[in-house]
C-alpha cells in the first residue's frame, strides 16, 4: 500500500511539474504590446510573393507598391490625386512650343540609397536619367519598352536633361511620372548590382530603402535618411505577402498589421467598417472592367448582335451585386477623371448608354437572324473579379436567349488564350494613365492580337478609329484633342466593339492611428501611397 501511495505521489508530482511548465510557458508568451520606439508600418497585400522590384518589371499590387516607395520619376502624380502631375526628381521642366521637347532641371544633391561599395549612396544626375530612359526603352530590360522607345534623352549638363519625342504623343509628361517604366534608377547602382540581382536587391532614391526580402513572407524597408523631400516620419515599412484575407483581418485586429489590402466588395467594406479602431479607405483609380467583342467571329461580326448584348446587359444590377461603395458607373472606354474620358451625360446625349432593354435586345437579335438567341463558349479565368463579371453577364444574357458557356481556366492560361484570339467575348480589367494608351493598346489596328503589327490587347479587332487616334496624337490643342478622344469613344460605342461595365475601386483597411499625410482620392500605384509624410500613432 505504501509503495502504491509513493508511486501515486511521484506521478502526481511529475504531472504537476509538467502542467506548471506548460502554464509558465504560455504565460511567458502572453501577447506583448509592441511598445517598440521604432515606427514600423506593417502592410499586407493579397499576393503570394513579389515578382520583381526592378522598375522595368512589375506585376501585382505589391510589386508596384514597393516600387512606389523605393523610386522616383522625373515627375509624379500628386499624392492622392492622379489628375495632377507635378515635379519629382526634376524641380521644374519646360516644354518646347512645338510640344516635342522637354527640358528637365533636376534637383541638386539627390542621393540614392546606399549600395555595395557606396555606403552613402551616390548622387543622382542627368546621366542617370538618360540611362534609365534608355533602359525603359529596351525590351530586354523593361516590360514597358513600347511606351518609352519614343523618347530620346540627352544630357545638357550634370543637372539638365533634354527629352525629345520621336513622334508626337498626347500628354507625354504622363509617361514620365512615377509609375512603371517612369521610375528612374541610378546607372552605377544598377550596373554594380547587376540586372538579375536587382530584382530582389533594388536601389532607388525614394523615401524608403530596401533592407531584406524573405521569400513568400515579406519585404523590409527602412527610412532613407537622405531623402530629398526630408527624412520620412516612419522608421520603416514591412510589406507582407498574405493571400488569405481572414489572416489579414485577424492580424489587423490584433495590430500585428496596421494596413491590409481588402476585398473589393460591399460586404467586406461594411464588415470592416464596423471593426473597432479601423478605417476603410475606398479610393480610385482602380481598374475598369470591360467586355470586348471579337468582331471577326460569327455571329459577333454583326453590329446588331453586338448591340443586342449591350442592351441585354444591366450595369446597375451588376453594381448592386458587387456593391455601390466599391464600384463606380463608367460609360466610356476611358474613365472620366482622365482628360478625354467620356462621362455618362455625354454618352446619354449621344444615345449610347445602352440601358437595359430586353425587348430591344431580342428585336435586334431577331433582325440579325437569331430570334431564339444562340449559344457560344468562352474561356474565363478563376480570378474572382473576372469570374464574377462573367457569371453575372451569363445570367443576364440568358434572359435574351444568348447562352454563354464558361470554361474555367487559371489566370496565366486565360491570358495566353485571349492573346491567341480564342475567345469571342473577352472580359478584361485594366487601368492606364493616359487616353492614348487606352486607345493604342486596346483599339488601334497594330495592336490587334495575333495578326497586328505589334500585337497587344486589341481583342475586338477594332480598326475604325485609327484615324482618330492618329489625329489626337498630332493635335497640339488640348481641348481639340479631348474632343477627338471623346469622338473615338462614341464610335466604339456605336459599333458596340466593347462595353465598360464598372470601375472597381481599391479597398484597403487600416488602423485608425495611421495617417497618410495627404488627401487620398485617387492613386495609380494600386495601394494608398506610403511616403515621407505617412505616420502612425503608436498608442492606437
Amino acid at each position, binding site marked *: 500500500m505504501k509503495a502504491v501511495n509513493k508511486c501515486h505521489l511521484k506521478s502526481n508530482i511529475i504531472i504537476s511539474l509538467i502542467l506548471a511548465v506548460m502554464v509558465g510557458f*504560455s504565460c511567458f508568451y502572453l501577447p506583448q504590446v509592441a511598445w517598440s520606439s521604432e515606427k514600423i508600418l506593417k502592410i499586407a497585400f493579397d499576393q503570394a510573393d513579389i515578382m*520583381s522590384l526592378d522598375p522595368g518589371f512589375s506585376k501585382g499590387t505589391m510589386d508596384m507598391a514597393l516600387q512606389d516607395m523605393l523610386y522616383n520619376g522625373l515627375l509624379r502624380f500628386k499624392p492622392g490625386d492622379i489628375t495632377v502631375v507635378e515635379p519629382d526628381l526634376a524641380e521644374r521642366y519646360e516644354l518646347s512650343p512645338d510640344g516635342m521637347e522637354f527640358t528637365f532641371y533636376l534637383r541638386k544633391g539627390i542621393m540614392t540609397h546606399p549600395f555595395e561599395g557606396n555606403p552613402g549612396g551616390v548622387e543622382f544626375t542627368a546621366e542617370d536619367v538618360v540611362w534609365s530612359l534608355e533602359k525603359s526603352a529596351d*525590351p530586354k530590360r523593361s516590360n514597358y519598352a513600347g511606351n518609352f522607345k519614343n523618347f530620346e534623352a540627352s544630357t545638357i549638363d550634370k543637372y539638365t536633361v533634354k527629352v525629345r519625342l520621336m513622334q508626337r504623343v498626347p500628354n507625354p509628361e504622363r509617361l514620365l511620372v512615377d509609375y512603371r517604366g517612369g521610375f528612374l534608377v541610378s546607372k552605377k547602382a544598377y550596373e554594380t548590382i547587376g540586372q538579375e540581382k536587382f*530584382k530582389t536587391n533594388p536601389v532607388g532614391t525614394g523615401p524608403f530603402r530596401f533592407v531584406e526580402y524573405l*521569400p513568400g513572407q515579406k519585404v523590409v524597408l527602412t527610412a532613407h535618411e537622405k531623402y530629398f523631400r526630408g527624412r520620412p516620419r516612419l522608421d520603416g515599412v514591412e510589406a507582407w505577402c498574405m493571400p488569405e484575407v481572414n489572416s489579414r483581418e485577424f492580424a489587423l485586429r*490584433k495590430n500585428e498589421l496596421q494596413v491590409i489590402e481588402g476585398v473589393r466588395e460591399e460586404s467586406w467594406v461594411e464588415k470592416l467598417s464596423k471593426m473597432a479602431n479601423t478605417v476603410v479607405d475606398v479610393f480610385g483609380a482602380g481598374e475598369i472592367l470591360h467586355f470586348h467583342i471579337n468582331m471577326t467571329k460569327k455571329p459577333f461580326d454583326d453590329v446588331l448582335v453586338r448591340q443586342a448584348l449591350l442592351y441585354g446587359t444591366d450595369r446597375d444590377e451588376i453594381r448592386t451585386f458587387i456593391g455601390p461603395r466599391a464600384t463606380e458607373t463608367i460609360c466610356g472606354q476611358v474613365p472620366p477623371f482622365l482628360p478625354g474620358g467620356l462621362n455618362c451625360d455625354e454618352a446619354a446625349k449621344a444615345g449610347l448608354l445602352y440601358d437595359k432593354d430586353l425587348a430591344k435586345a431580342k428585336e435586334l437579335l431577331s433582325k440579325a437572324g437569331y430570334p431564339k438567341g444562340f449559344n457560344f463558349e468562352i474561356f474565363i479565368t478563376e480570378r474572382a473579379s473576372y469570374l464574377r463579371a462573367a457569371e453575372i453577364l451569363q445570367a443576364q444574357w440568358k434572359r435574351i436567349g444568348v447562352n454563354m458557356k464558361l470554361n474555367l481556366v487559371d489566370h*496565366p492560361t486565360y491570358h495566353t488564350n485571349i492573346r491567341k484570339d480564342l475567345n469571342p467575348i473577352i472580359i478584361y480589367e485594366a487601368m492606364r494613365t493616359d487616353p492614348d494608351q487606352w486607345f493604342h493598346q486596346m483599339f488601334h489596328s497594330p495592336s490587334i492580337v495575333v495578326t497586328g503589327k505589334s500585337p497587344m490587347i486589341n481583342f475586338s479587332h477594332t480598326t475604325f478609329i485609327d484615324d482618330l487616334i492618329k489625329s489626337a496624337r498630332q493635335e497640339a490643342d488640348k481641348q481639340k484633342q479631348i474632343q477627338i478622344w471623346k469622338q473615338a469613344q462614341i464610335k466604339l460605342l456605336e459599333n458596340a466593339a466593347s462595353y465598360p461595365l464598372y470601375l472597381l475601386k481599391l479597398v484597403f483597411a487600416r488602423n485608425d492611428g495611421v495617417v497618410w499625410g495627404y488627401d487620398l482620392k485617387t492613386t495609380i500605384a494600386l495601394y494608398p501611397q506610403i511616403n515621407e509624410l505617412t505616420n502612425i500613432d503608436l498608442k492606437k
Partner: protein
Amino acid sequence: MLRLLLRRLLLLVPTILVVVTLVFIMVRVAPGDPAIAILGDYATKDSLEALREKMGFNVPLWLQYLRFLSNIFRGDLGVSMLNNNPVKAQLLYALPYTLELTISSMIVGVLLGLPFGILTALRRNRWADYVGRIVSLAGISIPSFYLGILMIFVFSVKLGLFPVMGISRSGDLLGRLNHLVLPAFTMGLILTSYIMRVSRSTMLNVLKEDYIRTAKAKGLNNVIVVYKHALLNALIPIISVTSIYFIVIIGASVMVEIVFSRPGLGKLMVLAMKQRDYVMLQSIMLVYAALAMMINLATDLIYGLVDPRIKYK
C-alpha cells in the same frame, strides 16, 4: 542493413529521374505561356520574345530536357523565372520551415493520436469510444485552412495567446516556437484523427489475438498486456500509415503556410504553378521525391527496430 541502405540510395537516382522527367513534360504540356504569366499585360511581342529566348524556350524540347538534366547532375538547379534568384537558395530557405512544421505536426499527431487510439480500442463501444470516433471523423472532415482560421480566431484574436502570422526573427528560438504552436496544432489535430483511427483499428485486431488472451490468463498487469504485448505488435501498420501521412502533409502544408503566413515549400510550389515557373517547379518536385524516398527508407529501418523478427538482407 548497410546493403539495404546502399541499394535504396542507388534506387533514389532512377526514381528521381522518372519523377523530374514526368514533371518536365507535364508543366510544358499544361496550357499557359510562362512569358505572359511573368510579364503581364503590358508585354509587347518583343519583350515576350526576349524573355522566351532568355529562358531557353525557343530551342527544341529535347534540347531543353538535356540541358535540364545536365544542370541537375551538376547540382545547378537554375534561377527562378519569376525573380531570378537561385532556386537552390530559395529551397534551402523554405525547406527548414516546411520540415519544422511537418515534424512538429507529426509529434502532435502521434502524441495525441496514439494514446487516444489505444483508449478508444480499450473502451470499445463505450462513451469514450463513441466520443473518440466522432471527434476523429470531425478531424478528418475539417479542411486544414478552415481549422487554421478557427485556431487563429480563438487562440490569437480572442484569447491573445499566440501571434497570428509570421515566423519570428532568426535566432529567437522561443519566438519561433511561439509562432509554431498554432500551425503545428492545426495540422497536428487533423493528423491526430487519422492516427487515432488507424491505431484503434489495429489495436482492436491485435487485442483479439490468442497471445493477448494468454497474457491476460497468466495474470499479467493490464498495462503490460496493452503496452508491451498489444501495442508493439500493432505498431507496424501504425508506422506505415504515419509515414504515408508524413509524406502527404509535406505537400499539404501549403494551406497552413498561407493561413499563417509562413514560408515553405508548399507556398513556393503553388506560386510556381500559378506563374508557370518551370524551373522552380521542377526543383521542388525533385526535393519532394527525394524526401518521400528518404522517409520510406527511414520507415523501413524503423520496422527493423520495432520488430526484431524483421531482418534485412
